[in-house]
């Protein structure tokens, strides 16, 4: 296998890791030195030739080849069998609907939130349960990290240069989960979005941070969602109409299952109960101008349609916590995208 990338020599593994720092190829954490053998194993696992183009980022005029994805996946600490997931995620963030340039560059500081569905999530031992957004699972940690390293190293999304996030958030290190398809009240997310249950797929969304909400008092969907909606109503995406992810963990999942609520039921309830008047938006300075009497009855939705709530089942079985994740910007600038993970 002929690799085209420039290469450098280091006297030993330790020095090779330091060289990666010196070259500016890391996210601040140590990386695995990308040797020819490791890169070849990545490419072989995905059955890709090094010069196959995975994505072309129009605004940056950058072609992302399989070789570059493989190098970054090695750096991130991926096992070779993770490579097809990374490839699909890169295809997804290059989709015009995702609109790479906006969310990657904006002062708004989004991360790539990734949800993996299908049998591959179990095969790779991806976490869909306890400590969902926390550390501890190699696949979750390194697949999300590999995507960010491709963005940084290959697409040039460097902090302060073409990543102008004012704040950013920890999800920019890695932000990758699987859905709990076994206990979910609903069909898997990728089935909802047009794929077959036996297919593997990854959904990406340009996302701000995770906002946990707690409700241990309710035994009905209406009760749980009343808490969620109260907190979402005035949140990071208010008045901008991005998409929102809603992640329901074990006990809240069970409440939805018992009540027989569909995804659509959840989404429609949330659309209705997160409405806010134009007058209030003006009073809290999320809209320009002074509120008048007409504005008091002019209601605005948090998102444009029920489908703009991505309803996801994942998280620990115990506890009364779930979460919402505001999308970046507005839907006009970036939308969630689902791509098949192809195991060639």
């Amino acid at each position, binding site marked *: 296998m002929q*690799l085209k990338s420039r*290469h*450098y020599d280091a006297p030993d593994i330790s020095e090779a890791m330091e060289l990666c720092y010196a070259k500016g190829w890391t996210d601040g954490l140590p990386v695995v030195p990308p040797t020819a053998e490791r890169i070849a194993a990545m490419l072989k696992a995905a059955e890709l030739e090094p010069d196959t183009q995975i994505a072309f980022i129009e605004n940056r005029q950058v072609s992302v080849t399989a070789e570059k994805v493989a*190098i970054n996946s090695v750096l991130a600490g991926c096992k070779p069998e993770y490579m097809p997931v990374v490839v699909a995620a890169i295809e997804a963030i290059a989709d015009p609907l995702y609109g790479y*340039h*906006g969310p990657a560059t904006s002062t708004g500081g989004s991360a790539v939130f990734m949800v993996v569905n299908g049998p591959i999530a179990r095969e790779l031992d991806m976490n869909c349960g306890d400590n969902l957004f926390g550390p501890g699972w190699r696949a979750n940690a390194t697949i999300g990290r590999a995507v960010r390293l491709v963005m940084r190293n290959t697409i040039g999304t460097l902090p302060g240069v073409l990543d102008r996030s004012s704040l950013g958030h920890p999800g920019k290190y890695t932000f990758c989960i699987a859905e709990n398809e076994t206990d979910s009240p609903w069909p898997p997310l990728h089935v909802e979005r047009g794929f077959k249950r036996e297919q593997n797929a990854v959904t990406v969304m340009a996302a701000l941070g995770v906002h946990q909400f707690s409700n241990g008092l309710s035994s009905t969907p209406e009760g749980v969602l009343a808490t969620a909606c109260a907190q979402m109503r005035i949140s990071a995406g208010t008045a901008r109409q991005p998409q929102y992810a809603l992640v329901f963990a074990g006990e809240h999942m069970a409440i939805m299952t018992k009540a027989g609520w569909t995804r659509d039921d959840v989404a429609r309830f949330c659309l209705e109960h997160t409405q806010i008047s134009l007058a209030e938006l003006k009073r809290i300075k999320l809209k320009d101008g002074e509120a008048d009497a007409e504005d008091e009855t002019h209601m605005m939705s948090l998102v444009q349609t029920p489908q703009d709530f991505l309803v996801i089942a994942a998280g620990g079985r115990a506890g009364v916590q779930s979460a919402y994740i505001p999308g970046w*910007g507005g839907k006009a600038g970036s939308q969630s995208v689902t791509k098949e993970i192809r195991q060639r």
Partner: protein
Amino acid sequence: MTVQIFDPTPEPKKDRHIAYAPRPTSLAGLRIGLVDNSKFNSDQLLLRIAGLLERDYGAKTHIMRRKRSAGVPPSQEIVDEFKASCDVVVAGVGD
């Protein structure tokens, strides 16, 4: 033992040139296109700029069109209209 590592950044592109549109030597009598990037007050800023270009540099007229989002290029419709109706275009992103 020597370890050889491979570079994750793009390979340098050879013979890559960006062709800029020719710049006019004067704005006198020219038509200005303004790309509103949809951010707060971007329209106000652009209209002030157009006013200065017309008052101090003799530009003739201006039209302003709004992008659907700051993070995306103008639509082809806007580009076509500017190509047909404008001699120079003012575009930029500000926060």
